[in-house]
């Protein structure tokens, strides 16, 4: 089937809000190339479980497409920016239209399984040497979209905080090498009460600016006591979910005909209740938590990977104004087949390796924060937990500077926010 054949009833299996959303924009979808539409549907099918920021972004993108394809029908819409751009739809999708697809792809049920289609499309693009052309088309589309539908600015300047090195008593190597060029390095930070101070600081932001899913706290171990309005994800709290998932994977792997692709598909379809998260939970956040484990690589095994991936996904999807992540020691490396076994051995930790992981993870957190709107006003603080070292980055903080003046985290926060 091709997009031009789409009808409203094709979306009957979509969740209620997603169904309404795509059928509202059916005319636009019908006019788009097949190499493009399933990527959009992959987002739309999860609309009911998306964070507010992603919902708004999707709505604005669809409205823009509608205004491109059928400008008259949207002339009263507040969202018809592309019409003003005077660009023709063909210009937006020329690159996608030139992608050659296989009959097998066209025959897939890409309406109900858009994620699987995208996975197969990716394989096809690699095998037919069209990946670069697709990347170019996607980049050009995103550039055009952002030009006519600019990213929403954050309600307040963003603040990212990374706390790294829990459990490390001494470390001789230089830390924060990748972040130092972007801000100030402080070598005499008073560590006393540091974590509590940071948690209180983000709580104050959450109280002052109550935004749904706008203020996050992610912990690689057991979460510390925190302000309840913070959106919290912790490795420790998800331990039963991780165990349930690994049990499920073991069972499925033993099934005849199961392969990597089939397993990935199965994992992508798992829902929170199947993994033991109760129906009374927050459906959006629970779905997010499950995806961290079913879509992330290594998140089931290493807490440092879990924290970094959680921060990346939270920033990409929820686009929070505040994000505090605290890395904790991960388990020592073991082979995967031992790790997924049910042995009850006491877990050995690797605090030094975890500090290296977290140092790189903090850098990635900063990069991912800077990809969001308002980057020029955003701030970032990374602190070696219970030690004296920190780097502070912000619009008013000189770059690549060093200070050995005694200070504390409260002062550093005030310098950058």
């Amino acid at each position, binding site marked *: 089937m091709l997009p031009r054949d789409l009808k409203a009833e094709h979306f009957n299996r979509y969740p209620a809000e997603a169904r309404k959303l795509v059928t509202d924009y059916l005319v636009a979808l019908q006019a788009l190339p097949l190499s493009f539409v399933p990527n959009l549907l992959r987002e739309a099918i999860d609309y009911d479980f998306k964070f507010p920021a992603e919902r708004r972004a999707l709505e604005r993108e669809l409205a823009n497409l509608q205004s491109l394809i059928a400008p008259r029908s949207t002339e009263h819409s507040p969202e018809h920016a592309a019409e003003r751009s005077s660009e023709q739809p063909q210009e937006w999708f020329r690159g996608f239209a030139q992608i050659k697809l296989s009959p097998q792809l066209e025959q897939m049920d890409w309406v109900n399984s858009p994620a699987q289609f995208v996975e197969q499309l990716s394989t096809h693009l690699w095998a037919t040497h069209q990946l670069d052309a697709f990347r170019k088309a996607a980049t050009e589309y995103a550039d055009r979209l952002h030009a006519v539908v600019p990213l929403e600015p954050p309600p307040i300047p963003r603040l990212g905080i990374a706390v790294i090195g829990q459990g490390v008593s001494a470390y001789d190597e230089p830390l924060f*090498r990748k972040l130092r060029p972007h801000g100030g390095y402080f070598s005499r930070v008073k560590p006393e009460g540091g974590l509590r101070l940071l948690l209180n600081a983000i709580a104050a932001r959450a109280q002052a600016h109550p935004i749904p899913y706008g203020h996050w706290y992610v912990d690689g171990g057991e979460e510390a006591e925190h302000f309840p309005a913070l959106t919290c994800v912790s490795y420790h709290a998800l331990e039963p979910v991780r165990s349930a998932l690994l049990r499920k994977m073991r069972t499925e792997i033993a099934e005849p005909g199961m*392969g990597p692709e089939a397993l990935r598909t199965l994992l992508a379809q798992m829902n929170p209740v199947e993994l033991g998260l109760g129906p009374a939970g927050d459906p959006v956040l629970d779905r997010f938590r499950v995806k961290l484990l079913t879509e992330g690589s290594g998140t089931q095994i290493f807490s440092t990977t879990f924290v970094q991936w959680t921060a990346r996904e939270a920033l990409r999807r929820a686009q929070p104004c505040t994000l505090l992540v605290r890395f904790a020691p991960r388990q020592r490396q073991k*082979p995967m087949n031992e790790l997924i076994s049910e042995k009850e051995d006491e877990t050995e930790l690797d605090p030094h390796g975890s500090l290296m*992981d977290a140092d790189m993870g903090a850098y990635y957190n900063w990069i991912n924060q800077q990809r969001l709107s308002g980057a020029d006003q955003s701030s970032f603080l990374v602190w070696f937990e219970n030690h004296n070292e920190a780097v502070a980055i912000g619009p008013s903080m000189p770059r690549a500077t060093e200070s050995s003046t005694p200070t504390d985290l409260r002062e550093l926060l005030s310098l950058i926010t």
Partner: protein
Amino acid sequence: MSRRDFLRSAAGVALGGALLGSRALASGIPVKNRKVVVITFGGGARDQETFAPEGQVNIPHLMGELIPQSSFFTQVVNRGILGHYVATASLATGVYETINNFASLPPEHPTVFEYFRKDRRRPASDTWVVAPSNGFNRIGESSHRSYGAGLGAQVILPKHLLTAALSGGHSEYQHLLRDNYETPFYAPELGGSEVELEQLERILNLSVEDFKGHARTLSSPDELSVYVVRQLMRQEAPSLLWITMHDIDVAHAGAYSLYVEGVRRTDRLCAEVWKIIQTEPEYAGKTTLFILPDFGRDSDEDSGGNGFQHHRTGDAPSRTTWMLALGAGVRENVVFDRPMESTDLVPTIGAILDFSPSLAQGKPISELA
């Protein structure tokens, strides 16, 4: 500093093309005595953790010992699929293969081993592959109708061999048995011509007990591979030996420290193989060694990826790597900046070992061949 600049400064050596022209150095060794060893520095390493200024600390052996003896090619581009099995198959055929990376399938085009054996009428014992995981068991022989069956390399999978040797309680060795990191929960069923357990003694001249005992002293699968390589070089002395390293690919688990540890270990093991080449009488003075990653990893800047963890974006850093060539017929201490493709390796080996890889897409590297 651009990539080109830091790679050149890392080498700290003369710019080959400008000073020396592009002619290869005559080895003076009769072609029938020449040997080639290929090491894939894998799976997948970035400049930042290797030859970039901040990464050089991770490769002291390459920097201090091997580069001064090498021709260093700074721009090796892989335009194919960036999965380890399919990319290694592409390196071995000189054609960008499109086989399923996760299935136990042979390459579709003739491998370097088949060209060599057919043209030079060499026995199977003269070409060997030492590979990391069960997924590589078909790498030695293609499905091509004019080559294929009976013309390929012998493939040895050290971890598979160890599994067979353990035959029961093997909890002590679990750290060596990981199959791969891209799909860590799978080990494809074997269907190729891998070495069976009884060959351990016959070919490698090792008792099962000796093999198990030595394995106990090793920390990683690649260390086990190099141990097997040493035995193979002593016992069989193949003319064409292909070693696929894979420890680095632990990066897929997302732990940066483990990835860097893998880079450091691979650096050490490459130097170890070079030392073996120089000390084994069958190899010393007549062997050309190639060291190259199968590809890179995603950059930190590409929002479609997650930095070092994967190689999924197809961005320039994930496609662009380097190659060291050293030993017989290779100029020492020179760097070549011109771009080449990873498919150029097979035609280059063809020129060195005097066979004609007629279906390969690449071109011989004029500075070596």
